[in-house]
């Protein structure tokens, strides 16, 4: 193989890889990222150092494993297993500002953090389905009263997606039999 062929092949390979990566970017957006992450900017900045997970007190941060080169070792949250307690320690230790530094007080967090938004399945939700009073999500929510309010005689939860930061404490708390609440990434429609 001559030099021109080699360089041409290498460039073609690179172009293919780049196109593949762009496609993966869209797919990766379907995961909940730790607080302070901004879509696109986060993927460009995260050097996969794992420091966020190291300091995370509730061990809510997990990592993609496997050989998927785009999202391998990027941090995400599995909120139905464990919600984010909004301590903002991960944004403190992030060396590249992939997670934008945010003070840990509730007002600042609500102003800056948007990990996802809540989607409630009213058919599964105990009070909405008329099966009784539950209120667990209301008690779990750090912004109860603004991000979630209770309505009606069954005291059913009503979410305000604009006020919600997406910490997922309600998703973690929601009875597993019901599993009515899901936090979806802010970009996802639904």
């Amino acid at each position, binding site marked *: 193989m001559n030099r021109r062929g080699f360089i041409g092949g290498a460039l073609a390979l690179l172009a293919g890889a780049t196109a593949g*990566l762009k496609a993966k970017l869209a797919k990766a957006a379907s995961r909940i990222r730790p607080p302070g992450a901004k879509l696109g900017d986060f993927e*460009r*900045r995260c050097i*996969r*150092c794992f420091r966020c997970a190291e*300091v995370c007190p509730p061990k809510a941060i997990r*990592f993609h494993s496997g050989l998927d080169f785009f999202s391998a070792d990027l941090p995400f949250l599995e909120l139905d297993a*464990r919600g984010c307690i909004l301590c903002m320690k991960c944004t403190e*230790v992030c*060396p590249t500002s992939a997670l934008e530094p945010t003070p840990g007080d509730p007002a600042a967090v609500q102003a800056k953090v948007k990990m996802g938004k809540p989607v409630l399945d009213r058919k599964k939700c105990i009070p909405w389905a008329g099966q009784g009073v539950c209120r667990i999500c209301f008690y779990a929510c750090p912004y109860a009263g603004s991000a979630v309010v209770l309505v009606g005689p069954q005291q059913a939860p009503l979410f305000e997606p604009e006020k919600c930061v997406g910490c997922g404490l309600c998703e973690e708390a929601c009875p597993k039999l019901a599993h009515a609440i899901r936090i979806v990434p802010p970009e996802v429609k639904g």
Partner: protein
Amino acid sequence: MASARRPERAGRQSALSRIGPADLFLKRARRYQRTRRLFLSLSVALVFLAPLWHLSRNELDSAGLTGGGRWVGLAARVPHLELPPLVGAPWTVELLGLEMLDPLAAAALLAARSFDWEVAIGVLPTLLLVVLLGRFFCGWLCPYLPLLAASNAARALLRRVGVRLPEVRLPRRAPLFLLAALLLATALGGTQLIGLVYPPSLIGREVFRAVFYGGLGGGALVLLAAFLFDTFVSRAGFCRSLCPGGALFSLLGALSPIRVRRAKQACTDCTLCDVVCNLGQQPMSDRLDSGCERCGRCIAVCPTGALKFEVGRAALSAGAPARPVPSRPERGRGAPLPRGEGGA
């Protein structure tokens, strides 16, 4: 291996004692090796201690929830002290309040146009060290070195039982091209890819994963591939011609004033230094380039103390022509050795 070689070296010393006080050099070289191994042990220890320490600091019950509780018992024994902040592994570490970032990470961030002041401050100390000391990280701190040592031992063992191992030499510029390709892919693809093929970063992550979550990820396969490449294809081939970090450090440290120099009068052309070098440097024929990792093993192994580190401008100017000499009559193994001025 070292103990097996010692009697041989002692014999050489007595035979060569008329040349000079080699013992003095040997003592210093051994102290250098001890210091280097201490740094290396600390670096490897850090990779394991940082996750264990954080596992002990954070809620143990929730750690047990995610990790299957495998390491929690061990983590519970780590003293629960309010130590200065220790976060991260060699790739990016905050140690005693000092933030340090791998120059390779900074280069990749630069390629992805997300370089900022925080990154600049983090990379400053390490960049300074690399410019001053060249590729020292590879010989002093890289947590892949224990694996490389295992690979070399496996090679020696295989050769002893009669297995023929190839010694593939990739082109000299290959690591630079690979580094450039990776940086280009980072710039175009919009994600930080380099950490996925860079052993110090991979090892930090896989150890963390094992400690925190009780399992290994795809990075372990990359590490295994590097190990197998080093063992069966080319000695230290990954470090020499594939590692993007090594390529970058060679580039940044090209003007480092610290070089291995040979006293021609004392050199007996025994080739021990050329053989001991993992990275293909040839101190015996003064062929050293910026790929030298300053591990000093060639100095420690020299029976006559002909090699030593030199610092300063003299070393710089003398070290400059260390690029491949235009005339190379003695290339390859088995060719007649160069008879230098001190050769005997």
